[in-house]
Protein backbone atom coordinates (compact mmCIF):
# COMPACT_ATOMS: atom_id res chain seq x y z
CA UNK A 1 0.00 0.00 0.00
CA UNK A 2 2.72 2.52 -0.88
CA UNK A 3 -0.01 4.03 -3.07
CA UNK A 4 -1.35 6.07 -0.13
CA UNK A 5 1.98 7.82 0.47
CA UNK A 6 2.41 8.40 -3.25
CA UNK A 7 -1.15 9.80 -3.54
CA UNK A 8 -0.38 12.30 -0.78
CA UNK A 9 2.83 13.39 -2.55
CA UNK A 10 0.93 13.85 -5.83
CA UNK A 11 -1.72 15.93 -4.07
CA UNK A 12 0.87 18.19 -2.38
CA UNK A 13 2.60 18.90 -5.71
CA UNK A 14 -0.50 19.48 -7.84
CA UNK A 15 -2.21 21.72 -5.28
CA UNK A 16 0.92 23.85 -4.86
CA UNK A 17 1.36 24.08 -8.64
CA UNK A 18 -2.28 25.02 -9.28
CA UNK A 19 -2.38 27.63 -6.52
CA UNK A 20 0.79 29.26 -7.85
CA UNK A 21 -1.06 29.77 -11.16
CA UNK A 22 -4.16 31.12 -9.37
CA UNK A 23 -6.35 28.13 -10.31
CA UNK A 24 -9.30 27.19 -8.11
CA UNK A 25 -10.00 23.67 -9.36
CA UNK A 26 -7.92 20.81 -10.75
CA UNK A 27 -9.78 18.66 -13.28
CA UNK A 28 -7.11 16.30 -14.66
CA UNK A 29 -3.66 15.07 -13.63
CA UNK A 30 -1.34 13.28 -16.02
CA UNK A 31 1.12 10.95 -14.30
CA UNK A 32 3.91 8.87 -15.84
CA UNK A 33 4.49 5.67 -13.86
CA UNK A 34 7.31 3.31 -14.81
CA UNK A 35 6.51 -0.37 -14.40
CA UNK A 36 9.47 -0.78 -12.04
CA UNK A 37 7.66 1.43 -9.54
CA UNK A 38 5.04 -1.29 -9.04
CA UNK A 39 2.11 1.12 -9.00
CA UNK A 40 -1.32 -0.47 -9.00
CA UNK A 41 -3.38 2.10 -11.00
CA UNK A 42 -6.74 1.18 -9.48
CA UNK A 43 -5.36 1.43 -5.99
CA UNK A 44 -3.59 4.72 -6.68
CA UNK A 45 -6.70 6.38 -8.14
CA UNK A 46 -8.71 5.10 -5.16
CA UNK A 47 -6.16 6.47 -2.65
CA UNK A 48 -5.93 9.74 -4.54
CA UNK A 49 -9.69 10.23 -4.42
CA UNK A 50 -9.55 9.82 -0.64
CA UNK A 51 -6.68 12.25 0.02
CA UNK A 52 -8.02 14.80 -2.50
CA UNK A 53 -11.43 15.02 -0.83
CA UNK A 54 -12.31 18.62 0.15
CA UNK A 55 -9.26 20.06 -1.64
CA UNK A 56 -9.14 21.88 -4.99
CA UNK A 57 -8.25 18.50 -6.54
CA UNK A 58 -11.45 16.84 -5.29
CA UNK A 59 -12.91 14.86 -8.19
CA UNK A 60 -9.89 15.39 -10.48
CA UNK A 61 -9.26 12.60 -12.98
CA UNK A 62 -5.91 10.94 -12.32
CA UNK A 63 -4.62 9.62 -15.64
CA UNK A 64 -1.81 7.09 -15.18
CA UNK A 65 0.37 6.29 -18.17
CA UNK A 66 2.39 3.14 -17.46
CA UNK A 67 5.90 3.23 -18.94
CA UNK A 68 7.35 -0.17 -19.88
CA UNK A 69 10.81 -1.18 -18.69
CA UNK A 70 13.53 -0.67 -21.32
CA UNK A 71 17.17 -1.65 -21.32
CA UNK A 72 20.40 -0.81 -23.13
CA UNK A 73 23.10 -3.45 -23.54
CA UNK A 74 26.52 -2.18 -22.52
CA UNK A 75 28.22 -4.90 -24.58
CA UNK A 76 26.46 -4.70 -27.98
CA UNK A 77 24.59 -1.36 -27.64
CA UNK A 78 21.19 -2.92 -28.40
CA UNK A 79 18.09 -1.17 -27.04
CA UNK A 80 15.15 -3.39 -26.17
CA UNK A 81 12.06 -3.79 -23.99
CA UNK A 82 12.55 -5.83 -20.83
CA UNK A 83 9.77 -8.30 -20.24
CA UNK A 84 9.07 -10.23 -17.04
CA UNK A 85 11.96 -8.40 -15.38
CA UNK A 86 14.56 -10.52 -17.13
CA UNK A 87 17.68 -8.44 -17.50
CA UNK A 88 19.41 -10.26 -20.35
CA UNK A 89 20.18 -8.82 -23.79
CA UNK A 90 18.05 -10.55 -26.48
CA UNK A 91 20.80 -9.91 -29.08
CA UNK A 92 23.98 -11.10 -27.35
CA UNK A 93 22.75 -12.63 -24.04
CA UNK A 94 24.89 -10.23 -22.01
CA UNK A 95 23.64 -9.34 -18.54
CA UNK A 96 25.38 -5.95 -18.50
CA UNK A 97 22.16 -4.02 -18.88
CA UNK A 98 21.49 -0.40 -18.13
CA UNK A 99 17.86 0.48 -17.36
CA UNK A 100 16.77 3.28 -19.70
CA UNK A 101 13.04 3.38 -18.95
CA UNK A 102 10.45 2.16 -16.49
CA UNK A 103 11.81 3.86 -13.38
CA UNK A 104 9.83 7.10 -13.78
CA UNK A 105 7.30 8.41 -11.30
CA UNK A 106 6.68 11.84 -12.66
CA UNK A 107 3.86 14.35 -12.82
CA UNK A 108 3.68 15.51 -16.41
CA UNK A 109 1.00 18.20 -16.38
CA UNK A 110 -2.36 19.13 -14.88
CA UNK A 111 -5.53 20.70 -16.26
CA UNK A 112 -7.09 23.40 -14.12
CA UNK A 113 -9.96 25.91 -14.08
Amino acid at each position, binding site marked *: *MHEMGIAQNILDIVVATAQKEGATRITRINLLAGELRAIEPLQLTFCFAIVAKDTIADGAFLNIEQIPVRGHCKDCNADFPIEDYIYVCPECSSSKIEITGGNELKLQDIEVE
Partner: protein
Amino acid sequence: MKINVMQDVLQANDKIAEDNRQIFRKNRNFVINLMSSPGAGKTLLLEKTAEMLAGKLRLGVIVGDVETTRDADRISKFGIPTIQLTTGNACHLDANMVAHALPHLKLDEIDILVVENVGNLVCPAEFIIGEDHKVMILSVTEGDEKPLKYPLMFHESKLMLINKIDLIQYTNFNLDEAKANARKINPDIDIIEISCINGTGLDRWISWLTDHYQLKQKGLSNA
Protein backbone atom coordinates in the same frame (compact mmCIF):
# COMPACT_ATOMS: atom_id res chain seq x y z
CA MET B 1 -5.91 25.51 -18.89
CA LYS B 2 -3.00 23.11 -18.91
CA ILE B 3 -0.01 23.61 -16.59
CA ASN B 4 3.28 21.82 -17.11
CA VAL B 5 4.53 20.20 -13.93
CA MET B 6 7.37 17.80 -14.83
CA GLN B 7 8.21 17.01 -11.21
CA ASP B 8 9.26 13.76 -9.66
CA VAL B 9 6.47 12.62 -7.35
CA LEU B 10 8.87 11.54 -4.61
CA GLN B 11 11.14 14.58 -4.86
CA ALA B 12 10.15 15.75 -1.37
CA ASN B 13 11.25 12.38 0.02
CA ASP B 14 14.41 12.27 -2.11
CA LYS B 15 15.45 15.73 -0.95
CA ILE B 16 15.17 14.77 2.73
CA ALA B 17 17.04 11.52 1.96
CA GLU B 18 19.88 13.61 0.51
CA ASP B 19 19.92 15.75 3.70
CA ASN B 20 20.11 12.53 5.76
CA ARG B 21 22.94 11.35 3.53
CA GLN B 22 24.93 14.53 4.24
CA ILE B 23 24.44 14.02 8.00
CA PHE B 24 25.65 10.41 7.70
CA ARG B 25 28.67 11.53 5.67
CA LYS B 26 29.61 14.12 8.28
CA ASN B 27 29.41 11.51 11.05
CA ARG B 28 31.10 8.85 8.90
CA ASN B 29 28.19 6.43 9.38
CA PHE B 30 27.79 3.49 7.04
CA VAL B 31 24.03 3.05 6.64
CA ILE B 32 22.07 -0.06 5.71
CA ASN B 33 18.35 -0.12 4.90
CA LEU B 34 17.32 -3.65 5.98
CA MET B 35 14.16 -4.97 4.37
CA SER B 36 12.18 -8.22 4.24
CA SER B 37 8.69 -9.59 4.69
CA PRO B 38 7.43 -9.94 8.28
CA GLY B 39 9.00 -12.85 10.13
CA ALA B 40 11.99 -13.34 7.80
CA GLY B 41 14.40 -12.75 10.69
CA LYS B 42 15.48 -9.09 10.61
CA THR B 43 15.52 -8.60 14.37
CA LEU B 44 17.29 -11.87 15.19
CA LEU B 45 19.89 -11.04 12.54
CA LEU B 46 20.48 -7.70 14.26
CA GLU B 47 20.84 -9.40 17.64
CA LYS B 48 23.49 -11.74 16.17
CA THR B 49 25.18 -8.84 14.37
CA ALA B 50 25.34 -6.86 17.63
CA GLU B 51 27.01 -9.84 19.36
CA MET B 52 29.54 -10.40 16.58
CA LEU B 53 30.48 -6.74 16.10
CA ALA B 54 30.87 -6.07 19.85
CA GLY B 55 34.27 -4.55 20.56
CA LYS B 56 35.00 -4.12 16.81
CA LEU B 57 32.54 -1.67 15.28
CA ARG B 58 29.84 0.40 16.99
CA LEU B 59 26.34 -0.46 15.80
CA GLY B 60 23.24 1.74 15.98
CA VAL B 61 19.71 0.74 15.01
CA ILE B 62 16.53 2.50 13.93
CA VAL B 63 13.56 0.11 13.97
CA GLY B 64 10.33 0.72 12.11
CA ASP B 65 7.18 -1.13 13.09
CA VAL B 66 3.51 -0.46 12.65
CA GLU B 67 2.97 -0.92 16.41
CA THR B 68 4.82 -1.89 19.65
CA THR B 69 8.42 -1.41 20.78
CA ARG B 70 9.17 -5.15 21.05
CA ASP B 71 11.94 -5.18 18.42
CA ALA B 72 13.70 -2.16 19.92
CA ASP B 73 13.49 -3.79 23.36
CA ARG B 74 15.14 -6.94 22.00
CA ILE B 75 18.00 -5.08 20.32
CA SER B 76 18.69 -2.52 23.04
CA LYS B 77 19.38 -5.40 25.48
CA PHE B 78 22.72 -5.73 23.69
CA GLY B 79 23.72 -2.20 24.71
CA ILE B 80 23.10 -0.94 21.17
CA PRO B 81 21.62 2.57 20.81
CA THR B 82 18.19 1.87 19.34
CA ILE B 83 15.37 4.16 18.26
CA GLN B 84 11.91 2.76 17.64
CA LEU B 85 9.68 4.43 15.08
CA THR B 86 6.07 3.32 15.20
CA THR B 87 4.66 4.17 11.81
CA GLY B 88 0.97 4.00 12.81
CA ASN B 89 -0.57 2.68 9.64
CA ALA B 90 2.29 3.33 7.21
CA CYS B 91 3.73 0.17 5.65
CA HIS B 92 7.27 1.52 5.15
CA LEU B 93 9.74 4.07 6.53
CA ASP B 94 10.37 7.20 4.50
CA ALA B 95 13.22 9.70 4.62
CA ASN B 96 11.25 12.10 6.79
CA MET B 97 10.55 9.54 9.53
CA VAL B 98 14.24 8.61 9.60
CA ALA B 99 15.21 12.31 9.73
CA HIS B 100 13.09 12.70 12.87
CA ALA B 101 14.87 9.78 14.56
CA LEU B 102 18.41 11.08 13.89
CA PRO B 103 18.56 13.80 16.62
CA HIS B 104 17.88 11.04 19.19
CA LEU B 105 21.04 9.13 18.27
CA LYS B 106 24.66 10.08 19.01
CA LEU B 107 25.66 9.55 15.39
CA ASP B 108 29.31 10.44 15.98
CA GLU B 109 29.52 7.38 18.27
CA ILE B 110 28.10 5.01 15.63
CA ASP B 111 30.03 3.26 12.84
CA ILE B 112 27.27 1.20 11.23
CA LEU B 113 23.66 2.35 11.39
CA VAL B 114 21.06 -0.24 10.42
CA VAL B 115 17.56 0.96 9.64
CA GLU B 116 15.26 -2.04 10.11
CA ASN B 117 12.36 -1.26 7.83
CA VAL B 118 8.74 -2.31 8.29
CA GLY B 119 8.19 -5.96 7.31
CA ASN B 120 6.89 -5.75 3.74
CA LEU B 121 8.33 -6.88 0.37
CA VAL B 122 6.91 -4.01 -1.69
CA CYS B 123 6.68 -0.51 -0.24
CA PRO B 124 10.01 -0.08 1.59
CA ALA B 125 11.90 -0.50 -1.69
CA GLU B 126 10.16 2.56 -3.10
CA PHE B 127 11.37 5.14 -0.58
CA ILE B 128 15.08 5.97 -0.23
CA ILE B 129 16.07 7.14 3.24
CA GLY B 130 19.69 8.21 2.68
CA GLU B 131 21.17 4.72 2.98
CA ASP B 132 24.44 3.51 1.42
CA HIS B 133 22.94 0.14 0.55
CA LYS B 134 19.68 -1.74 0.71
CA VAL B 135 20.02 -5.25 2.11
CA MET B 136 17.16 -7.72 2.01
CA ILE B 137 16.41 -11.01 3.69
CA LEU B 138 14.52 -13.82 1.97
CA SER B 139 13.84 -16.80 4.23
CA VAL B 140 13.51 -20.31 2.85
CA THR B 141 10.00 -20.66 4.31
CA GLU B 142 8.79 -17.89 1.97
CA GLY B 143 9.47 -19.60 -1.37
CA ASP B 144 12.06 -19.37 -4.15
CA GLU B 145 9.73 -17.57 -6.60
CA LYS B 146 9.57 -14.37 -4.53
CA PRO B 147 12.10 -12.43 -6.67
CA LEU B 148 9.80 -12.78 -9.67
CA LYS B 149 6.71 -11.79 -7.69
CA TYR B 150 8.24 -8.78 -5.94
CA PRO B 151 10.96 -7.62 -8.37
CA LEU B 152 11.49 -4.06 -7.15
CA MET B 153 13.07 -4.98 -3.81
CA PHE B 154 15.38 -7.55 -5.42
CA HIS B 155 16.28 -5.01 -8.09
CA GLU B 156 17.17 -2.32 -5.53
CA SER B 157 19.12 -4.51 -3.09
CA LYS B 158 22.91 -4.75 -3.04
CA LEU B 159 22.82 -7.95 -0.96
CA MET B 160 20.27 -10.70 -0.48
CA LEU B 161 20.59 -12.84 2.63
CA ILE B 162 18.88 -16.22 2.34
CA ASN B 163 17.91 -16.91 5.94
CA LYS B 164 16.70 -19.98 7.87
CA ILE B 165 18.95 -22.16 5.73
CA ASP B 166 18.91 -24.69 8.61
CA LEU B 167 15.23 -25.33 7.80
CA ILE B 168 15.67 -25.92 4.08
CA GLN B 169 15.30 -29.71 4.32
CA TYR B 170 11.75 -29.22 5.64
CA THR B 171 10.68 -26.98 2.74
CA ASN B 172 10.44 -27.23 -1.05
CA PHE B 173 12.69 -24.15 -1.40
CA ASN B 174 15.13 -24.62 -4.30
CA LEU B 175 18.30 -22.67 -3.56
CA ASP B 176 19.61 -22.61 -7.14
CA GLU B 177 16.21 -21.50 -8.41
CA ALA B 178 16.00 -18.69 -5.83
CA LYS B 179 19.48 -17.40 -6.75
CA ALA B 180 18.76 -17.64 -10.48
CA ASN B 181 15.49 -15.76 -10.04
CA ALA B 182 17.18 -13.00 -8.04
CA ARG B 183 19.96 -12.68 -10.64
CA LYS B 184 17.42 -12.42 -13.47
CA ILE B 185 16.15 -9.27 -11.73
CA ASN B 186 19.53 -8.03 -10.53
CA PRO B 187 22.58 -9.72 -12.11
CA ASP B 188 25.02 -7.97 -9.71
CA ILE B 189 23.27 -8.84 -6.45
CA ASP B 190 25.46 -10.38 -3.72
CA ILE B 191 23.94 -13.46 -2.09
CA ILE B 192 24.85 -15.04 1.27
CA GLU B 193 23.10 -18.04 2.83
CA ILE B 194 22.69 -17.74 6.58
CA SER B 195 21.08 -19.24 9.64
CA CYS B 196 20.72 -17.10 12.74
CA ILE B 197 19.92 -20.27 14.73
CA ASN B 198 23.00 -22.40 13.97
CA GLY B 199 25.27 -19.56 12.81
CA THR B 200 25.79 -20.70 9.19
CA GLY B 201 27.16 -17.90 7.00
CA LEU B 202 27.08 -15.22 9.69
CA ASP B 203 30.86 -14.75 9.44
CA ARG B 204 30.41 -14.02 5.70
CA TRP B 205 27.67 -11.48 6.50
CA ILE B 206 29.92 -9.76 9.07
CA SER B 207 32.78 -9.67 6.51
CA TRP B 208 30.45 -8.17 3.89
CA LEU B 209 29.34 -5.53 6.37
CA THR B 210 32.85 -4.60 7.56
CA ASP B 211 34.27 -4.62 4.00
CA HIS B 212 31.59 -2.23 2.79
CA TYR B 213 31.98 -0.11 5.94
CA GLN B 214 35.69 0.21 5.18
CA LEU B 215 35.04 0.99 1.51
CA LYS B 216 32.84 3.90 2.58
CA GLN B 217 35.46 5.17 5.04
CA LYS B 218 38.09 5.05 2.30
CA GLY B 219 35.77 6.93 -0.06
CA LEU B 220 35.13 9.61 2.57
CA SER B 221 38.85 10.05 3.24
CA ASN B 222 39.63 10.42 -0.46
CA ALA B 223 36.76 12.86 -1.03
